[in-house]
C-alpha cells in the first residue's frame, strides 16, 4: 500500500519502541489509512490505550491520546465518551491488556454498548515482559514461565464477544493492510461497540504464530456469510480448523449506552463546563 501523508502523521519525532519487523507497523498503517479515509478530525478523536507494546500505538499518531494503565483502556474510554459524546473514541491495545488484565472491563464494556471502537493487537504472546503466555496463546507453546507448554484453554475473543451480544465483531490479519483498513473503517463508522481483533506476529517472542503461520491458518469469510446471523457467527468463531477473517457479526440499530443514560443529550460536557468560572491558580 502506498503511503500518503495524513493529518495523523506525527510532527514530533517519537522514539518508536517497536522491534523491526513487528506486526504493529502494518496495523499502524491500516489504522492511519482508515482514519485518513474517514476524514476524521484529529482534534475530535481520542485514542485510548493501556500498557504494552501495542498500547504505545497512539504515541505515534498525531491525535488526542490517553495512554493509561495496564488493562484499563476500556474504563477510561467509557469515561471519555460519556463526558463528550461528540468525540470519536478508538481504543487500541494488546491481547494481554484487553483479554487478561482488562478481561472484566472487556465483558462489561460490551454489555454497555458504548459507541467506541476497540482494536486489539492479538499476537498470542506477551512481548514487553519477554515472552510469557498471553490469554490467547495456543496450548503447548513453551515459554520461560510455561516451561511444559501452555496448559490453559486459549481465550476466544470472538466467541466471548458474541456470547455477550456485541453488535460489531471483526477479525483481521495485520499482514493484509488493505483488508484490515477496511474492517477498521467499518468498525469506526459503526454506531455502537465495535471490536476488531487483529492477528499479528511477534517476531521476537512468538516463534509458533509467525507471518507464515497466520497466512496458512486463516481464511477470509466467504461472501455468502450472513453477518447478521449470530448463531452462524458463533459456529464459525468456535469451529476447528482455519481461523476466520472478516466481519463475523454485525447488528445495526441498537440503542447505545450514552444515549440511554440521557444526561447531557442537549448540552455537551464542554458547554456545561463553561458555566463554571475559568480560573488559573
Amino acid at each position, binding site marked *: 500500500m502506498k503511503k500518503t501523508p495524513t493529518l495523523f502523521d506525527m510532527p514530533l519525532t517519537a522514539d518508536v519502541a517497536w522491534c523491526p519487523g513487528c506486526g504493529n507497523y502494518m496495523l499502524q498503517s491500516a489504522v492511519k489509512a482508515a482514519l485518513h479515509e474517514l476524514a476524521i478530525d484529529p482534534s475530535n478523536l481520542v485514542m485510548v490505550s493501556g500498557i504494552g507494546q501495542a498500547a504505545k500505538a497512539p504515541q505515534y499518531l498525531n*491525535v488526542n491520546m490517553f495512554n493509561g494503565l495496564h488493562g484499563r483502556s476500556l474504563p477510561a474510554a467509557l*469515561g471519555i465518551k*460519556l463526558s463528550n459524546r461528540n468525540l470519536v473514541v478508538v481504543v487500541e491495545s494488546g491481547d494481554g491488556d484487553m483479554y487478561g488484565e482488562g478481561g472484566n472491563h472487556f465483558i462489561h464494556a460490551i454489555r454497555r454498548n458504548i459507541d467506541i471502537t476497540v482494536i486489539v493487537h492479538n499476537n498470542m504472546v506477551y512481548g514487553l515482559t519477554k515472552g510469557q503466555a498471553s490469554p490467547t496463546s495456543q496450548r503447548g507453546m513453551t515459554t520461560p514461565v510455561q516451561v511444559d507448554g501452555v496448559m490453559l484453554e486459549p481465550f476466544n475473543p470472538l466467541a466471548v464477544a458474541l456470547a455477550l451480544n456485541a453488535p460489531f465483531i471483526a477479525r483481521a490479519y495485520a499482514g493484509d493492510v488493505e483488508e484490515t483498513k477496511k474492517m477498521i473503517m467499518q468498525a469506526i463508522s459503526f454506531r455502537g461497540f465495535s471490536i476488531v481483533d487483529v492477528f499479528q506476529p511477534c517476531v521476537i517472542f512468538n516463534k509458533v504464530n509467525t507471518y507464515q503461520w497466520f497466512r496458512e491458518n486463516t481464511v477470509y469469510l466467504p461472501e455468502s456469510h450472513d453477518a447478521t446471523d449470530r448463531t452462524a457467527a458463533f459456529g464459525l468463531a468456535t469451529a476447528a480448523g482455519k481461523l476466520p477473517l472478516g466481519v463475523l457479526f454485525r447488528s445495526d440499530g441498537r440503542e447505545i449506552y450514552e444515549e440511554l443514560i440521557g444526561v447531557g443529550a442537549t448540552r455537551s*460536557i*464542554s458547554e456545561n463546563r463553561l458555566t*463554571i*468560572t475559568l480560573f488559573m491558580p
Partner: protein
Amino acid sequence: MHHFLNDISMVFAGEAGQGLQTVTETLLRILAKSGYNVFSCTEYMSRIRGGCNTTEIRITDKKQRAYLERIDMLFALSPLAVEHLKSRINSGTLIFAEKSQFAERWDERYIDTPFRRFAVETGSPVFSNTVAAGTVFGMIGLPFERFTDYLGEQFAAKGEDTVSKNCMAAKLGYDFGRLIAADKAILLPSPALTGSSGRLLMDGNSALGIGAIAAGCNFISSYPMSPGTGLLTFLAARSKAFGIVVDQAEDEIAAVNAGIGASYCGARAIVTTSGGGFDLMQEGVSLAGMIETPIVIHIAQRPGPATGLPTRTEQGDLNLALHAGHGDFARAILAPGTLEELAESMQHAFTLAHCFQIPVFVLTDQYLLDAVTTIERRDIKRLPAETAVIKTGAGYQRFLFTDDGLSPRGVPGYGDGLVRVDSDEHDENGLITESFEMRARMVEKRLKRMKPLAEAALMPSIIGSIKEADVVVIAWGSNRGVLEEAIEILGNKRVAGIHFSQLFPLNPDVKSLLEKRALVVMENNAAGQFADLLSLQTGLSIAHRIVKTTGEPFSVEEVAEALSAFKESKRARP
C-alpha cells in the same frame, strides 16, 4: 418523676426489616418541623432481616451532634433489644416494651406499651411503628394533627385505607403516650421558639451530595460498597435534574479509571467507595498523579482490614489515603466533621483537585454519613466553583513547564490543540521519555505544587479558648461533635479542642497554634494515624492518644471521662 427538659436520648431498637427506619424518620421529620434540635445516629448489623438494629434520637435545647451512650427512653420493639443494649441501659432508663414479650425480665423500669396489640387491633402488626411514633408524640403533647397530616402525605400513594389505618394506629399510640406522660410525670423538651422555618433535617450523605452538586460534579462512576454507596444513590436520584452522568462500574478499578478518563475530558468527576474498595482504586490515584488529572475520591470508612465490620464505623483509612499509589506526587486529604463541613469539603475538594490537578480525598465514615441532624438552611454555604480548563491552541503542550509546576489544562475537543497524556514518564508533549534529565524535571514539576497546596490548606477549628489552654485535644473528621460536647461538659479553660477538616497537607501555621501545649489526639482507630502524621508534619510530640477499636463511634461520656484525666493535670507542658 422523669424530667428531660433540656436533653433526652431515645433509642429505638428492633430487628432488621421491622420498619425501624420508618418510625425514626417519622419522628425526626415531625420534630424538626416543629422546631426541635434533633440529632440521630444509627447502628445496624450487616444483614437484611433479623438481628438487632438501633437508632438514637436526641432532642436537645442547644444544638448537639454527638452520640450519647446514656439511654433515657428505650423503645424495644424486639426482645433482643434489651440484651443488645444492656451496657447502655441504667437504673433511670424507661423501657417501653410489650409485657407479653419481656415477662421474665420485667421490673419497675418497664412500661407495658402495646405496640403490637394496638397495631393488630388496627388491622396488621405492620402498624407497630406508627403506634410507637404516636406514643412519643403523645408524651410530648404535640398537636395530633401534625402527625396525621404527615401520615396523609406519606401514605397518600398507598391509598385511603392505608392512611386511615395509620391514623388509627397513631391515635391509639398518641392517647397511650398522653396517659403515660401524666401517670409517670414525664416531661419532654418544648419546641424551640425561633428559627424553625429555615431548619432542615439532613443526613451526612445528603450534605455530601449537596456539596458535590454545588461543586458542579457531573460524573460519578462507582461500585456499591457500604457505607460509600449513599453518595452514589443520592447523585443517581438527582442525575436528570443536575445533568450528572452516573455509571455503576463493574469494579472499583473500572470506577476510578472511568472517573479519570471523564476528568481528562473536562468532566468534574468523583468516585465513592469504602476502604476495601479503595484498595482496588490505588492504581488510579497513581495515574491521576502522573497525568496531573483531577479526581475527587470519597472514602467512607468502615472498620478493616479486609471485609471487617461492613456496617460499623472507624477512622482507619487515613494512612491508606495518605500513601495510596506508588511514586511521589501531590495530593490533599479532607475530613469534614459536620453537615456544614461535609457540604463545604466537597466543594473545596473539587476546587483543590481542579486548581492543583491532583487527586483529592474526602474521608468520612459510617457514623457521620448516617447521622441525621437539624441544620439551618443558611449554614449550607455555596463556595465559588473554580476550574482551570483553557481552550487549547495549535501546538498545545499538556505538560508545559511553568514556574509553579502547573501547566494550563486543556481537554480534547475544546480548542485546536491535542491533549496527550501518558502514564509512562513523558515530556511536555506527553511523549514517552527515558531521558534522566526529563524524568527529574517532571518529578520536580509534579511535586512543586505541594507548597502552595499547603499554604492553601484549611486551618483547623478551635473549640473553647486555646489561649488559656495548656492541654489541646485534637480530633478530625466525624469526631467534631463529640469533642465539642465533651469539652463543654468538662468546662475547664485549661483544656481546649481543635478539629482538623483538612489532614494533608497541613497548613504551615498549624505548628505555632499547637506548640508549647500538651497535645492529646483522639481518633477512632488503633494506632493513632493522625497523631503520627501530625507529629511527622510539625515535629511536635503527642503527649497522649485516645483511640478506639470496637467499631462504634466515640460517645460523649467516654470522651468526657477520658478528658477528665487532664483536668487536674499539672504536667501540661511537654
